[in-house]
Each structure stands twice: as C-alpha cells, then as structure tokens.
C-alpha cells in the first residue's frame, strides 16, 4: 500500500475483468512491474477452454432464439405488455451501447446515461419548441447529440499525455452524468426537476407512431440492425484491437496502436447508439426527466449488462429483458418487498455466475472470442 505510483501496470486479471484498482496503472507505464496479481479467486482462464472447440458455436443459437422470441412476442402479449416490451427493446439498445464500451474496450463508462438522456432532452426540445416529430429528423438528431456529447466527454477523459485509468474514466463519466442531471434539475428551460412532459408521438409523414405493435417492430428492427453492425465490428480485426485495449492498453500502445484514439472512437460509437436509444425512449415514454441523464439510469445499464454477461452483446440484451421483466413481475406480485427480492436475485446470479447469465451456456473461450481465421484444428490443452 505504499506508493501506488510504483504499483504500475497490473497484469489484467485473467478473466478480463479489469480491476478498478488495477487501474492504479494510471501513472505507471508499461513494463515497470506487473507484480500485481489478480486476486483470491482461481483464475478463470483455467476454466475449460475446450467447449468452444467442439465445433458448435453457442452464441449464434442464443442470438437466433432471442430474435425468434422477440418476433412473435406481440402476438402473444396483451397490448400494454407490448408497450412494455417496446420499452425493454429500447433499453436493450441502450445496454448494447454500454456493452460495446465496457465489454469490448474495457472502458468503464459509468455515465452512459448522459448520452442517452442528452439525446432524449434534445429531441424533446425539438418536439416542444420546433414541433419536429418526424422520425427522419428525430433519430438522426438524437444520434448526433449522442455522438457529440460522447466525443466531447471522451476527448476530455480519454485523450491526454497519460493513459487514463479505468477508475478515472468511470468516475469521470459518472461525474459527467451526475453534473448533467443536476444541471437539468436546476435549469428552467429544461423543465427543472419535472422534466419535459407531453412529447407528441413520433411521425412519418402523416403517420403517427402510437405505442403498440408497430412501434415495437420498428424499434426491434433498429435494434437488430444496430446489433448486427456491432457484431460485425467486434468480430473484425478492429474488435481484436479492442480486446487488446481491454486487456492491456499500454502494451498495445507499444505495438504502435493509437490506443487512446481507439478508445475515443469506440466511446463515441457507444455514445451514438445511446443517443439513438435515448431519442426513441423520449418519444415512446412521452416525457423526459433528469433521472434519464443521471446516476440512476447509468447504474441500471451497468446492471443489465453485467447481469446478462458483458462482452457478448446478446448478454446485454438478455440482461435487460430479464431485469426489466423480473422487476415488472415482482413489483406486481410482491409489492412491498420487491426491491429486496430483486437485490437478492441479482446477488445470487452475480455470486454464482460472475460472468453473467450468458455464461450458463457460453464457454470462456467463445466469450472472449478469437479473431483470426477460423481455427482448422482444435487446440489441445496439455501437450
């Protein structure tokens, strides 16, 4: 505990979770001394590596199943539940944005709601003051707001002489979203504490998107497209660079990667998606309020992703669906104690499945992924 300046680069804990404190790296530069060891638990890398090499990939099956369920949902759900499902799909989009920055690039964005909420407020203002409700304007505007906000914040937090530590980024983003929340509360133009109510429905020409199956399918379509794009991105060679970033930023800087730029780029991509989700959310819910920018939503999205399993994309979606679904059901049936039950449920999953629900079916190797050409022969563990 003396001098954490000396502490230096920790070898990233093997299960790819970056230590917040492992972020002591802040000042340290590569190579000084990676003598910081993971922790008590057995290294996860020693978990079976074999499963993925069996030939069958689990991930596409899970993805297909989820899509299938999502497609038939409006037929089996009552109206108001379809509306609820739409909301969940939008939140899943939001969760995707966080998974991209945390699960893949190892940037702990504890203020992801800032981009979500900023876009929400932006489009709400457009609707209120300029009467713009056309989907063709609203969604691009929302994404643009997300992009701009994340570029600005990312630029400040991620670029600079020294690589920024995980803890610094998480705190910086948290503070950013906290400050935005406070700003929204204090600023009358934005409606203060009360937010901006009564946003009119989204339109396309003369058609109005009422909440319901159509809105649902539209949002689902957007989610699928964004999902596929993200999937393409994280499996590309760029995705490998991200994985390197997550594992050991300083190390890959010595390969000649512009690590900080990569981080800023992926952060901005995440912000953009969050912005898209935020603008959809604002119009779907019909109002925006400061929490949407602040710590509450920021923590929530972290919860979704870690619960479902980070670094898999589909885990983020599953996490969102399950947490939202379960809270909805619990709050209906166990009104007084539902937060406690939810907490206990979360805790159990985290304790026994620290890699998220998805790890029930997904092996370590497939979760981390491999980026080269498909392996021709299977690796064998013991020589």
């Amino acid at each position, binding site marked *: 505990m003396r001098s954490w300046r000396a502490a230096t*680069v920790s*070898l*990233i804990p*093997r*299960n*790819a979770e970056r230590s917040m404190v492992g972020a002591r790296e802040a000042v340290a*530069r*590569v*190579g*000084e*001394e*990676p*003598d910081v060891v993971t922790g008590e638990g057995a*290294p996860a*890398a*020693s978990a079976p*590596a074999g499963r993925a*090499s069996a030939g069958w990939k689990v991930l596409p099956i899970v993805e297909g199943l989820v899509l299938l369920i999502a497609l038939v949902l409006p037929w089996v759900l009552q109206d108001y539940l379809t509306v609820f499902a739409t909301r969940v799909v939008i939140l899943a989009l939001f969760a995707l944005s966080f998974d991209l920055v945390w699960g893949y690039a190892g940037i702990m964005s504890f203020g992801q709601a800032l981009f979500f909420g900023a876009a929400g407020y932006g489009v709400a203002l457009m609707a209120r003051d300029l009467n713009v409700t056309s989907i063709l304007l609203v969604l691009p505007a929302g994404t643009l707001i997300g992009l701009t906000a994340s570029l600005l914040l990312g630029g400040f937090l991620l670029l600079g002489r020294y690589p920024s530590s995980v803890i610094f980024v998480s705190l910086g983003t948290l503070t950013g979203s906290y400050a935005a929340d406070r700003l929204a509360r204090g600023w009358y133009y934005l409606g203060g504490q009360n937010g901006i109510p009564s946003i009119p429905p989204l339109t396309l020409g003369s058609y109005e998107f009422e909440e319901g199956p159509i809105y649902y399918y539209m949002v689902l379509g957007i989610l699928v497209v964004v999902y596929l794009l993200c999937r393409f*991105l994280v499996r*590309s*060679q*760029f995705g*490998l*660079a991200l*994985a*390197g970033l997550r*594992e*050991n930023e*300083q*190390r*890959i*800087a*010595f*390969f*000649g*990667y*512009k*690590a900080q730029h990569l981080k800023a*780029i992926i952060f901005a991509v995440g912000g953009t998606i969050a912005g898209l989700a935020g603008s959809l959310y604002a119009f779907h819910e019909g109002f925006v309020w400061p929490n949407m920018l602040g710590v509450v939503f920021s923590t929530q999205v972290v919860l979704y992703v870690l619960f479902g399993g980070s670094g898999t994309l589909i885990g983020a979606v599953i996490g969102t669906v399950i947490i939202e679904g379960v809270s909805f059901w619990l709050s209906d049936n166990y009104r007084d104690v539902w937060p406690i039950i939810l907490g206990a449920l979360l805790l159990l999953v985290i304790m026994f499945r620290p890699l998220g629900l998805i790890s029930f079916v997904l092996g*370590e*190797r497939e979760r*981390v992924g*491999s*980026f*080269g*050409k498909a*392996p021709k022969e*299977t*690796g*064998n*563990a013991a*020589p």
Partner: protein
Amino acid sequence: MPLLEAQGISKVFGKLTALDGAALTVGENEFHGLIGPNGSGKSTLMKCVAGAEVPTTGKVSFINTDITAFTPTERARAGMSLKFQITSVLPTLTLYDNILLALQAHCSLFDLVLSRTRNKLHDQVMTMLTQFRLADRAHDAAAALSHGQQQWLEIAMALAGKPRLLLLDEPTGGMSLEERRVTGELLQPIKQHCSLVIVEHDLDFIRDICDRLTVLDQGKVLASGTVAEIQANKSVQEIYLRRA
C-alpha cells in the same frame, strides 16, 4: 549515421540515480548486447529508448530523427519494438490473436474495421507460431502458457511488427541452454532487416549472437565496443569478479 543514438541519458528516481549519462549507439543491422550487474540500469535504459520511461536528461535519436519527445506509439510506428523484462502478453486472448494483434498494428483503421488483412496475415501468424514451436497451442489462451513459453510468445510478438530496431530485455530468462540456442537461431535471420539490442546475463549467449557490447555499471557506460574488445577490457573483467 547509426540507426539509434541515445546520448547523455540520465534517469533519477527520487534519491536514486539509476542512469547517469549513459549512451547507446546501434548501427544498421547490428546486434548489440547490453550487459551489466543487477541494478546497473539496463532495463531503465531500454525503457528510455522505447519510451516507457521519460529520461530526466538526454536525447534519443532514431533513423536521423530526434524521438526524445515521442510517445511509445509513435516510436513503435517509427519502427521500434520492445520486449519487456517481465512478460506482458495479453492473457485471455489466444496465442494466435496475440500475434495477429501485433502484426496488424500498422494497418489502417479502415482495414481493421473491414478485416481486410485477416487472410493476408493468417499465414504470417502461423509461420511465426510454427517458428517458435507454439503452433499446436495456437488456440489456447496466453495465460495458459508456462513462463518460458510466454517469453517466446513475447519475442514473436516483438518481431511481428517487422521493426527496424528490436529491443529485447532478457528474452531467455527461464530458458534452458538448448532453448537459448534455439532462440539465438531464431534471431539470426532478422539481421538482414533489423538491428537488435539485447539485455542478457548469459555471456555465452551474448558472445554467440552479438556484434558489439555496451557494459553498464551503476548507471554509467563502463565500456563499449566489439565483443573481443570488451572481453579484453580490464575494468569489465573486474566487475565480473565483483560480487553483488
């Protein structure tokens, strides 16, 4: 004009002067050994050259450019590559991906996003893995390698970027005599396009592969010259007899 020229490098840590006006000159296609007792500042000098440490004073120039103010990334892009004394492979990634990551470092963002170099680099990755006898473990996580195997992986990664100057800090730590010999053999072919600075304690190894040597002692250059000159040098012999 030498490839690398570091002059008057000093590095002070608090009260301790780890480097005191050290210098290092490496010519084109030269294998240069850096030796000296523990704590004489070899690793620190390597880090100053590669950009992992900022020297307190001194100047580093590389291929006729002053790179003193360059970041590690810029130095890497200029053609420098470093293997640290303490291995730092990317533990959860497969060996294959570790190497690919090093190989593709110089591709453009566009190529990366579209994975346009994936096929082209595949053969290179497999060649490197085969060279370093790691091909059968290509799809295991790097964390599952033993210490010596990680050293090899590190060397492979350092080589992957086709550097003009390769800096190896104790690459053979934890290797047996045989393995050292193989490492030496693996390094020989790069001489055509690359210079090498290598820190080693094993004199036989150094003698076998190096053209010139620099001896550090307590942060200063004690001697620098061809292997034969150094072997004949009185003060060098002295520190070899000295203990601790």
